[in-house]
Every structure is written in C-alpha cells, then in structure tokens.
C-alpha cells in the first residue's frame, strides 16, 4: 500500500499495488502446471494451450519429495525425464511465459507427503507437539501426516540440502537472465491447518522460542512476571497456556502473548526460509507467501487475522496473498478475503485461484462457481493470480486442461474470457475506489482465538468433533471476563454490523487490520474500527496520529482505557478529552464514537457525505458494485456490478457526467447507450463495464 513515486518504480518488484516488470506494471495472470505429474512429451502442447487462453505466467510447485532420491542426492531428469525442471523452465521461457516458482519446502500439491520426503516426516525430532505434548497429525488423503516444527534448527538444516540443490537451477532462470520473476516461500504456512490456538507448537524448541520472544518483548523476567500476573523464578518456568481459564482482564496477557507468538512463529519461519533463498541466488526477484483460504468452500466468513499476519509478513517478504476457492453462494466470503488482501497487501495477488477442485471437497462446485468467484474476487481489487490448477492431474478434478493435453472447451472459454476481460479493462492501470477501510481488531481476534474451549488438530476430511478450526460461536468461551460484554463474541457482531452498514451506504471500502501502520492508514480517508475496553497502546497511538493529520476515525462502542497488557492506557481517551460519545475534532481530523449498532448508519451517512459524489452509481440495493479509476485518466472508469442473490436483478447505472462510451468488458461489445446504462443480471452473475465519461 505504500505509494512509491512513479519514477522510482522498480525494474522488477512490487509497488503501488502493481507487479513491475521491466519498469512497467505487469499482468501476472497465470496458472499452475505440475510438470512432474505430466508426460514430458505433452509439456509443449499443454503450454501452447495455456498461452492460447491468454495466460502470461506459469506457476510451478517444485516437490522436494519427488526430486530427492536419498538424503542429499536428487534427480532433475537424469532418472525420470518428468523431473527435468530445468528443461521445463526453459520451455516456459521459449513460449514467452513469465515464471513463478514455489520450491517449498512444504508445497502440499496434494502429494502424500505435502512435498517433504518421507524421512523428514518420520523424524520424531522434527515433529510439532500439541498442548498435551503428543504429536500433531493432519488427517488428509491418502495418508495422515505429522505437523513439522518450524522451530527446529534441524528442519532448516535439512531444507538447506534441498535448497542447495534446486536454487542453482532456479538462479540460472531468474530475471533478468530468464523468465523467473517471483518465488513463493513455503506454502499455506498455518501449523499444518492446526489453526486451533492450542493445537501447536508446544515442542521443546518452540517453547524455548516463545520464552525468547517474551524476553525480547518485555526486556526482563520481572517484566514478564508483571505482565503475566505471576512470579517466574527463571525464564524456564514460563510455560505457554494450554487451556483457556481466564476470569478477569488481568488473566489475559499470557493468552494474548501466546497468540502473538503464534503469529511471529510463522513470520519468523518464512523470514528464515526467505533469507536462505536469497543467499542461494534468488535475491533479485520478489519473494512472496500464500496463506490458505479460510477453510475453503462453506468455511469461515472472515478469520483472516491471527495466526496469520499479512502485514507483518510483508515486512520480510515482498507480498502475501490468501488463496481463494469458494462457491457462488458465498459472495460475502469472497468479498471479505479479497477486500482484505487488496486493503492490506502491497500487491493484491491470489496465489491459488479457483480452477477445478480438490478431490475431497464435499459437494464440489462447477464452472458457474468458478466464473462468479473469479469476477467477485477481481472486482474487489485483485491485480494478479495463479489459477490452481490449469492442468488436471492426480487428486485434482475438472481443470480447463486434462492431463493428456485435451481441453475442456467450456472451461477454456470462460477462463480465457476472464483474461481477455482484464485486457479490455486495462486492469493494470486501474485503482479500486475505496476511501474507507474497515479494520479488524487483531487484539480481539487474538482473544477470540485463545478463548476456544476445546483443542483439536486440522482435518481435511472433517474433524470428529464437528467444529470449525476457526473459532466461532460454537467454540469460544461466552463469559465476559470482567468486561461489559464478552469481547471475544461481541467483536464479531460489531465487525459484521460495520460491514453491513458500509455495504448499505454504497461506500467503496476495503478491509485491513490493526497491524496497519500510519502510512497504510493514511491511504484512506476514513478508518472504521470496533473498540471495547482495551486496545494496545501502539494501535491507540497510531489512530490518534492518523486523525491528527487529517483522517476521519469512526469507532465504538467503547473508548478503551486499558492497553492489551490490561494496564491503564488512555491515549485515545485523553486525545478525546474524556468524551465517550458523539463527534469531536482532533488536529486536522475528526473522531466519531458510535455506542450502538443502530447509530452506525446515521454516523456513516454524515461522514460519507463529506466525500462527495462517486463518478458512477448503481441503483439496486440488492446488488453490490465497485468502481475503479484509471490512474492516468480519471474519466476512464470501470464498474463491476454483482448479483449475489438467487433471483434475477436489474440495475441502472448513472454517471456524474455524460457517458461517451461504454463497453461490456466480458463480451467486448460496445454499448450504444450514452444515457443511464440499464442491465439485467441473472442470479449469481457479475458484469463489468468500462465507461468513458465526458
């Protein structure tokens, strides 16, 4: 999100929500092809089909477990021609394709070992541990695997053997020598889907790291003891929480610390792997990571924060995305995830973007889901993506291209049409009009995660306890823990109410979280945030600074008077002169306190009126729309209109100035209307128009 002056845009890199290649914003529209699963004789024909569909990039998972013959010895085509990654990379370059590689060490890819050689999975010293001290097992097909501990130095030493072998090959193809323009570090790092707060990692080495994390955070054992409201005689006495038992605010810091540590564990692990890749010849290309789609079809509607921390992770790699697989009925789900990525990442990219379906998804979707979800994601500002999977293979169904190279024509048409639509929209020069950012409150999300009443591991086939891995109303503690209301529950209600009211207001908004710094917040005119009795001092100070320099802050229902350490912290309250309701000026900006959800619409209406008219308006309140402006020509406008309902809808699009030209970007048809634009939207459809205003 940080704005980089145009003259400083990189030859290769990310800035201004663009992926720059040779100093120009590049269209990173690509898809995954698993070379090792395909007959090498078919590679060329398959890549030709990919190019014909309008893709410009191939995304390549590279499996350690497939290439390793024995510890430290690898096959890159000498034994199995399908393992000749060097030849495949060269072939991609010959076809004019950019390349993104994903060498793991974890790649999942529906491989039995998730990409790890069996000897790694079998090594007890590398196993993560749960709160009860036993190993952590992910139930997945065709064989359960243990979660590995990324806290173990030995894990990185073993990974180094793999990186030592693969990186020299990759470095030969890295831009500007070849077509390799980005590298993904590991894959969907999420404790092997052990998202439950108490599921891992309680291994000895992880607990040592937790203690070091606390020592760095607090500076001394005495300060840790003070924060945790206990007395530790030695650092070795500090133990992470293993069951939620908090009854009062003072009990919470120890839980919030473990949640914060779980985020830093993932960030630090990625950072260490990224450094290893840079040291081995990949320092010249952007590195990135993909968080998993929050639970896939039918899953959580948000849950994009803890243990994930996109913004913190972008401090150690160049960009981070969330994978997106969904069904057409879950428009709000797609909107939430993609609005978060476009509102938080410096390059809104979907590293795995729905194309076909994993064999074990229950009730798998079809092409209508793929088309709707594609457009629903793009309309919220996604700038690049990798289709997963472009080519079908073992354990993946219904991709546009079959493993024998033949084409599913209906799918190839729709996926190709999506690429052509983006070209018609001049997508790389468009910016989402979103003056508002709705922040998730990471402090409260951490509390929600900690307050789960039961602990269980990830399970791809459905956990026997029937609960979601993400905390929700069925799993979190309902006690108020000494606050006016159970923050861990109320925060979800409030976030949902803000979201709904912003949708009804027709304001362009994105989503981020309280990890955002002042520079990121300053990109938006209005910040909306749920606040209860506590909020970290750093967030309070960032918000005050944001308002003082001209921002508009809407918050509520409570002005916090405690920090996340549950000690008095009145930065916000002091800035507001002790006012706990109403509106107030502060520096160049203003603060508006909403004490009841029923007041949200009125306050938003008042504040949004100051933003002025949007260039385009869509009339039907059941529809959802977004507006994108050409960064070099504000009269060049793109409007997306989505019908997320199961009923046909009509829309009338009016503009603030006369429409001089309008194109249906999906069909390419030039529309003759110069007045208000009328359109019909069947159930679960999205239309995109490029409009030239007078």
């Amino acid at each position: 999100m940080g704005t980089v002056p145009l003259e400083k845009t990189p030859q290769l890199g990310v800035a201004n929500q663009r992926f720059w290649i040779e100093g120009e914003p590049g269209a990173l529209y690509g898809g995954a092809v698993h070379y090792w699963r395909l007959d090498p004789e078919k590679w060329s024909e398959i890549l030709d089909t990919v190019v014909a569909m309008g893709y410009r990039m191939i995304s390549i998972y590279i499996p350690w477990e497939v290439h390793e013959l024995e510890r430290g010895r690898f096959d890159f085509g000498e034994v199995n021609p399908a393992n000749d990654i060097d030849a495949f990379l060269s072939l991609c370059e010959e076809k004019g394709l950019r390349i993104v590689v994903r060498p793991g060490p974890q790649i999942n890819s529906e491989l039995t070992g998730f990409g790890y050689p069996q000897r790694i999975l079998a090594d007890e010293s590398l196993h993560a541990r749960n709160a009860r001290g036993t190993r952590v097992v992910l139930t997945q097909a065709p064989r359960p695997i243990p979660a590995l501990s990324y806290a173990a130095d030995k894990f990185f030493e073993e990974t180094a053997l793999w990186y030592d072998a693969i990186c020299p090959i990759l470095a030969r193809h890295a831009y500007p020598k070849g077509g390799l323009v980005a590298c993904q570090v590991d894959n969907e790092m999420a404790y092997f889907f052990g998202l439950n707060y108490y599921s891992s990692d309680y291994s000895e080495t992880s607990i040592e790291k937790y203690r070091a994390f606390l020592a760095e955070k607090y500076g001394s054992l005495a300060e840790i003891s003070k924060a945790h409201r206990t007395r530790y005689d030695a650092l070795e006495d500090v133990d992470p929480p293993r069951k939620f038992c908090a009854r009062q605010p003072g009990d919470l810091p120890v839980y919030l610390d473990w949640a914060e540590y779980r985020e830093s564990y993932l960030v630090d692990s990625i950072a260490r792997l990224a450094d290893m890749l840079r040291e081995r010849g990949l320092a010249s290309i952007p590195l990135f990571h993909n968080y998993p789609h929050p639970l896939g079809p039918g899953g959580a509607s948000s849950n994009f924060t803890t243990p994930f921390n996109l913004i913190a992770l972008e401090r150690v790699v160049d960009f981070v995305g969330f994978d997106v697989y969904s069904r057409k009925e879950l428009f709000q789900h797609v909107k939430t995830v993609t609005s978060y990525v476009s509102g938080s990442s410096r390059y809104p990219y979907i590293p795995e973007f729905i194309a076909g379906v994993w064999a074990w998804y229950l009730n798998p979707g079809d092409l209508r889901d793929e088309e709707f979800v594609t457009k629903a994601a793009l309309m919220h500002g996604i700038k690049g993506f990798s289709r997963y999977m472009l080519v079908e293979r073992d354990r993946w169904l219904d991709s546009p291209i079959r493993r024998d190279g033949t084409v599913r024509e209906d799918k190839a048409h729709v996926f190709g049409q999506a690429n052509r639509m983006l070209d018609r929209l001049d997508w790389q020069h468009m910016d989402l009009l979103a003056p508002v950012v709705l922040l998730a409150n990471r402090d409260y999300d951490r509390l929600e995660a900690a307050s789960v009443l039961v602990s269980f591991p990830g399970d791809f086939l459905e956990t026997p306890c029937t609960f979601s891995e993400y905390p929700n109303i069925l799993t979190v503690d309902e006690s108020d823990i000494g606050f006016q209301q159970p923050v861990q529950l109320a925060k979800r209600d409030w976030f949902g109410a803000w979201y709904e009211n912003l949708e009804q207001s027709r304001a362009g908004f994105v989503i981020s979280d309280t990890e955002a710094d002042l520079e990121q917040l300053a990109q938006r005119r209005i910040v909306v945030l749920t606040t209860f009795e506590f909020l970290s001092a750093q967030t309070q100070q960032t918000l005050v600074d944001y308002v003082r320099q001209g921002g508009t802050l809407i918050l509520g229902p409570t002005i916090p008077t405690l920090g996340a350490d549950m000690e008095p912290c009145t930065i916000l309250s002091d800035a507001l002169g002790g006012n706990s309701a109403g509106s107030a000026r502060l520096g160049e900006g203003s603060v508006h306190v909403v004490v009841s959800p029923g007041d949200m619409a009125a306050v938003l209406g008042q504040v949004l009126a100051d933003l002025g008219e949007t260039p385009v308006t869509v009339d039907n309140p059941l529809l959802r729309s977004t507006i994108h402006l050409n960064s070099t020509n504000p009269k060049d406008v793109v409007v997306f209109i989505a019908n997320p309902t199961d009923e046909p809808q009509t829309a009338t699009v009016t503009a603030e100035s006369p429409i001089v030209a309008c194109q249906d970007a999906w069909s390419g048809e030039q529309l003759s209307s110069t007045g208000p634009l009328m359109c019909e939207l069947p159930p679960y459809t999205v239309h995109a128009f490029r409009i030239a205003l007078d």
Partner: protein
Amino acid sequence: MLHANAQMLDIDVDQWRAAQDLILHSGKAAPRLVIIHDHGRVQKARFSDGEPLPNAPTSITDPRRTAAELFAEFSGRVEFVMVMERDAVDDYFARVQGAWTIDTDLDDFVTIMFAALDDDPEGIVVHPGPASGQLGLQWRLGWGHEEIVTKVTSTISPDSWLVLGSHDVDRLVASLLIHFDEDLEVDLFTTAAPERIDLIGGREEVLERLIDLVRQQGGRVGFALSVEHQLAPELLAATDKARVIAAHPGEVTVRTP
C-alpha cells in the same frame, strides 16, 4: 487397505459429486445441539446454527441423561445432541494423534480415531449414539472397516477392479471404479466420464460399457454392480446387501466377469 500413494485420476466431477452424495454424510453439516462443559460446569449450550439453548443447564452431573433428555425435547430440530467435557475432548485428540505412525494407512487411522470416540462414554456423549456413528465425516456403507476388509478379501481378487454404478432411469449418474493392487490395497480411483463412455442407456447396457472401458485399458474387472439410483441409499445402508438385492430383482445388476 488404502495405498499410501493411492491415485485419483480422470474423475468426472458430476459423477464424483453424485457418488459423494450417496456415500458421505457430514456430521459438521448436521443440525445438532452442542453442550460443552468443564467437569460439569456448562460453558456452551447452543444449536449448531448459533442459537442459544433456552433454559440451558448450568451444570451437568449425568451427561448421558442430559443428552437423552435434550434430544427428546428437540428431536424435531436436531439430528443429535453432543455433550462434551473439555478435558475429555483434549485428551481424546491427544491420544489419537499419539497413536499415529508413519506407516499408518488413512483408513486404519480414521478407524482408530472414530473407535476412540466411544472410549470415554461420559466425556464425549452423543445421543442418539454412539459418538462414532454420528460425528465427523460418516461413510454410509452399512459395514464397518473390518467387515469391508473381510468382504474385499473374499470377493475381490488381486490386481482387479471394483466397478460401482448408480443409474437413474436412462442415465448413469454416479460411479466409482476402484483398482485393488496385488496386496488388495486400493491404489487407484476413477469414475465414468462422458468423454470416455456414453452414460446414456439402460442400466445393464451402461454397466457393460463400464466393464469394457476397464478392459480396453488392460484392466480386469473382479466385481461390478449397478443399482437404480432410488434404491442406492437403501443398498448402501444395509448390512445384509444380498437380501436387498434379492428383494429388488429388477433394480440391481451384478457382474462377476
């Protein structure tokens, strides 16, 4: 029984979706009443749609009786009532994960995991029970794991295919083609697909095409069965499948080529 590298190739998504509908049942998707307590102190009492249980108990002394009483009261609204003690749940998952070994096949692991659900009848209580028959992803096969292994061993010959179809009037709507290796481990799944065979026609006719499809690819069919779609759930659920087949002579075709 499931090979460590069992492959799933050339699967038609419509056939697979229909097969899932017949075979799999999601406990997570089932309407249910959830009670979570900490050694008797109730901390959660909600329906799976999030609605709170009216007049929820604050403590529990006899979880099985509580589950039975709540089910009697709300049987029209829920498929089952689950009463879970927090430490019992954590212990259960710790125990199951601790039992894993690198050589454990998925079906064996899942069998262990579900059997263990019934190990603590006071800690993890489901009514109607047992817990292993309601929670998680349920396989509507009528037979338990051990019985399936026995049937496979007695019916399927090594290196052969099991062909299963479900037929709706004039069309094959669901199919599974399963290959067993020399050790009778399942090493390959696939389905019929419209680009490979014509799915339209009578039940027996389409079943023959399926058998031919396997043969054309060098495979040997050990057992093939196609059932009228409306009868499929009853046949799958039955423990005595021969009786169901005998009772519906015109609705099931069996081939043992």
